[in-house]
């Protein structure tokens, strides 16, 4: 991954949900691109379309119009099977509610991301342990999620998202369930780990204090980008 190159790009993306006979326009034509090594925040009021945009950028939701390209590959019209391959190869996800496997220990949770990519055995365990160490949880490797604090859980999730070194990291309100200090620490960690590797990071957040860690803030309102670049709270 070369810092500075555009790794993720959305062009004219629109999304309309149909609820019975009612059409809900969630996105109305969005252009956004993220370069390697860049941390981009996606902010806006509730219901403005942030999660929808993030899902489309992450190839888990198909846009009604427009296109998304990941690492230069246009994903428009790809079947779900191919989209899954794109996600597996290039994208790491971090979720608000961590989405860890409750029955798997911390290190095993991280290993899953490698197992999906065909890395298993001691090699996978070593890499997972190293990833846990990089988020400061070397000593929690064999702990189940229920015995971890919220911040620790999110750090396990970060280790899982990063362990396979994806080009793109997408996070939806990763700090919403954390106190502000822990939240800042988590974001600082994502920034540190991803940026040094040259990954693109997109974080959806309501938390203005996180803006310090961003290279760019994209504001979205009512399905449209209303500001792109300014780091105003």
């Amino acid at each position: 991954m070369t810092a500075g190159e555009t790794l993720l790009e959305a062009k004219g993306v629109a999304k309309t949900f149909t609820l019975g006979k009612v059409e809900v326009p969630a996105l109305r034509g969005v252009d956004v691109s993220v370069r390697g090594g860049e941390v981009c925040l996606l902010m806006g009021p509730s219901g403005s379309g942030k999660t929808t945009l993030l899902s489309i950028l992450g190839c888990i939701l198909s846009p009604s119009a427009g296109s998304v390209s990941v690492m230069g590959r246009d994903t428009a019209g790809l079947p779900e099977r191919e989209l899954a391959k794109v996600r597996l190869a290039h994208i790491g996800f971090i979720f608000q509610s961590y989405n860890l496997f409750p029955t798997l220990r911390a290190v095993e949770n991280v290993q899953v991301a490698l197992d999906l990519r065909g890395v298993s055995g001691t090699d996978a365990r070593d890499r997972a342990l190293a990833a846990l160490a990089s988020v400061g949880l070397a000593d929690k490797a064999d702990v189940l999620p229920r015995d971890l604090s919220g911040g620790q859980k999110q750090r396990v999730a970060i280790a899982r998202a990063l362990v396979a070194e994806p080009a793109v990291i997408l996070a939806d309100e990763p700090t919403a369930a954390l106190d502000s200090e822990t939240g800042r620490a988590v974001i600082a960690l994502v920034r540190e780990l991803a940026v040094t590797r040259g990954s693109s990071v997109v974080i959806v957040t309501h938390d203005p204090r996180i803006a310090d860690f961003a290279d760019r803030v994209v504001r979205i309102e009512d399905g449209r980008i209303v500001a792109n670049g300014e780091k105003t709270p």
Partner: protein
Amino acid sequence: MTIRIALRNLLHDRVRLAVTLTGVVFAVVLIAVQGGLFVGFTQATTCVIDNTEAEIWVASRGVRNFDVTHPLPPRKFHQILGVPGVGRAERVIVRFANWKKPAGGRESVEVVGFDPGSGLARPWNVPAGAMAALKLPDTVAVDALYLEKLGIAGGKGVGEAVEIGDRRARVVALTSGIRSFTTSPYVFASYENALRYTGMEDGQCTYVLVRPAPGVAVEALRDAIRRNVRDVDVFTREEFAGKTRHYWMFTTGAGMALLIAASLGLVVGGVVVAQTLYATTMDHLAEFGTLRAMGAPGGYIHRIIVIQAVAAALVGYGCGIVVSFFLVDLAARGGASIVLPPVLAVGLFFLTVVMCVTAGLVSIRKVTTIDPAMVFRGA
């Protein structure tokens, strides 16, 4: 890792796991017992035929099974003896008769009359010395399983004097493990004694058993007897056994009832397992959604569900087959005949796996329809 996820998912909810395993065990035991009864019943219907040395059975025309048929007139025996290629032929009597217990009361028995001297159709599992005693007048052999039923358990059986068909009879030998599938125990006697117990006329018989002369093919001789002797049905031993089995299993509905009970076990067990595996999958739907979002190929998630099903099958089968063999053992002592041959046990193993995996398919349908976008909707 898929194995680990699958096993942890199963172990996560112990109560549900217990229900799953109970479902599998239930199915295995029900199928094993009903199937074992079926096999035991099937074997029992032809155990006399299977244990004779004669290759060919001749019966009166229209015979449908071993146990109930018309007698053959005396001249048929001589006609058969005259067919070229017959090495040896013997008359055998198979007929139901009345057994009067020493202490009073009656039982129906199935008298098998044979020639103790040559023994084309002799009782097996009887001590060699005891065979000689059967040549004496008024002597019979019964199976040790039925001493109680025949009212002669008190004196250990041998030496007891009873009446069969209002004729005196003395038990001089005991067989072991010759089980009747009807409620009437077999009573073995010489042909001459059996004539009197069954009230048949001198020279009559139920079957003529034939051995080909050396060098004569069984099928060829069978066809020769068919051509030369009128108004009889001629079978090879296997054909007659097959006919008898088929009659009891499928004409009387007894076999069908057992097979239906066995398939019921399969269906009920399968439904229970499908339910609980589905519930287990639903419990972990969020994780499957996360896997989907992370880009897990469909096969990865399916593997987890199939492993869950196979693990449940393995453990359930293990417990179930142990319980089944225990029940078989118990039944054997109780006089019932449940036979669990290795092929049935092995077949049941694969059936269990297929049942569980099929049950798991219900869950697979569910996970393939997960919308990975659910992961961001706080699911």
